[in-house]
């Protein structure tokens, strides 16, 4: 449905994008990941026909973005990074204007505006002035605006940036609903968003393609891989390391507790939980938690993008997926 073939873009001497290629199939929802300034917005602007690329090709629904911009624009709903609102208009006036701009006119226009407002949860907000809306509602209107001409492809640039957690959950739920019958490209630097919404993601950094694939494939990029957390008493790290299969062991300083229990991060290729427990008992130590941890998308992302230039809000660890109490 969406095809980018070695896209590149320079602004004067600055190279913003270089050789970026990816495809998004019909009905897919794909996350577009990258640190700030990676070229996410530039790519989306090229796909929507706002700016032309310096090189490469892009096709949406079979139409070339450069040669048939009108056909492409009719099929794409676009939510820019900051919702493009006129602060002096009311919600109803604005949505009607955008619908007409996209060729939905007359009776169909009011019907469509009503339907979209209902879908996005804006019912009863027709008369509100856009300039007085909260950030969450501005974002909702921005999303509604992108849906008015019922486009098969949605391109959303950081749809949840700057929202509070409740608003984020709301917008995400909306996007998940939309994904059922739309092809969606969603740019973000919030990784948990990708994990809850997108089965597949494309990672770019400094204007280059870094990786693309399913989340599991991306997680395989994490250098550390999966690891085991163990919390023990009365046994040294050296003794623990003797357990079969253990490759590396290091204490986790932040969870060092005053009650005499110590947590270790154990790296291994195989499941070492049982071997670790046996080793602790053999050494007459005590164990109160053993937990297998998967590599997180965040770790994978940091390793893909490289340490420099990464500005990410850290996400709290997920609750233990598979815990063993001893």
């Amino acid at each position, binding site marked *: 449905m969406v095809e980018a073939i070695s896209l590149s873009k320079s*602004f*004067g001497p600055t190279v913003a994008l270089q050789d970026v290629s990816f495809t998004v199939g019909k009905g897919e929802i794909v996350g577009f990941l990258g640190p700030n300034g990676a070229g996410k917005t530039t790519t989306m*602007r090229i796909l*929507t*026909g*706002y*700016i*032309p690329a310096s090189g490469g090709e892009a096709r949406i629904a079979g139409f070339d973005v450069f040669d048939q911009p*009108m056909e492409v*624009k*009719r099929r*794409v709903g*676009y939510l*820019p*990074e*900051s*919702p*493009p*609102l*006129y*602060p*002096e*208009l009311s919600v109803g*006036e604005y949505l009607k*204007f*955008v619908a*007409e*701009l*996209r*060729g939905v*006119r007359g009776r169909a226009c009011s019907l469509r505006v009503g339907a979209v407002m209902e879908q996005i949860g804006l019912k009863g907000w027709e008369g509100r002035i856009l300039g007085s809306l909260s950030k969450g509602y501005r974002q909702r209107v921005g999303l509604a*605006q992108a849906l008015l001409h019922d486009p098969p492809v949605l391109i959303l640039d950081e749809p949840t940036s700057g929202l509070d957690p409740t608003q984020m959950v709301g917008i995400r739920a909306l996007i998940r609903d939309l994904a059922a019958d739309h092809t969606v490209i969603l740019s973000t630097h919030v990784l948990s968003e990708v994990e809850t919404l997108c089965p597949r993601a494309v990672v770019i950094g400094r204007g280059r393609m870094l990786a693309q694939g399913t989340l599991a494939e991306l997680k395989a990029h994490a250098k550390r891989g999966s690891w085991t957390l163990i919390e023990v008493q009365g046994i040294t790290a050296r003794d623990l390391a003797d357990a079969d299969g253990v490759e590396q062991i290091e204490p986790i300083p932040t969870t060092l507790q005053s009650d005499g229990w110590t947590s270790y991060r154990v790296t291994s290729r195989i499941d070492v939980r049982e071997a670790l427990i046996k080793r602790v008992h053999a050494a007459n130590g005590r164990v109160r938690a053993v937990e297998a941890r998967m590599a997180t998308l965040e770790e994978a992302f940091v390793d893909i993008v490289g340490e420099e230039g990464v500005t990410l809000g850290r996400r709290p660890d997920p609750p233990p997926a598979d815990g063993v109490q001893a």
Partner: protein
Amino acid sequence: MIGATWTIWKKEMRCYLVSPLAYVFLAAFLFLSGLFFYLGVTLTGEASLRVLLANLAVTQLFVLPMLTMRHFAEERRQGTLELLFTAPVPLGAIVFGKWLSSVSLCGLMFLGTAVFPAILAYYGNPDWGIMATSYLGLLAVACGFCAAGLFASSLTDDQVAAGLLGIVILLPFWLVHQAEALVGDDWADSVKKFGVLVHLESFERGVLDSADVLYFVAFTFIFLFLTFRSLESRRWR
């Protein structure tokens, strides 16, 4: 194309009529008109709008760039230009719709001055033909100046800068009437032909001279075309 122009026009008119800016300029324009009307009638003793209309042309030079300054500058700053440019609408329709809305607002301002002909008709016997062509002349000036103001707005994303730039672009078309001061008398006549006031004279005499009409059509067209090109080229940078 026509549908899109109409949509843009409606939205622009709506934005004008809910913003205080339009009313401030409407008020200023009508105040100055009243002043020129009073002076014109008392000084010349004629039942005509000759003085009023000549002065309004110059007033427009300063007022119209203030009305057009927000068009593209504000859209760019607000991020709404992205909305317009990613909609399936030709760029020409956007430029034309916005220009038409400014000209329409000028039309409304001129409507506000209709009280003066009414006063003249009550107390005197004005020449309605001259009145009509004079108003057409004013409208012709509005068309040209709005196009130039729109062009200024397409060059920057700062409204105030766009407004001042618009005035700077238009000033030479007024100042050439003082050409004698700069170049010799031989040259002055040809330089003056670029000025706006020379081409208004026929309108004020009640004549529709095709050369003068063509001047204003070309003036408008050239600036609308420059606006179009400037918007198009900014996307490449």
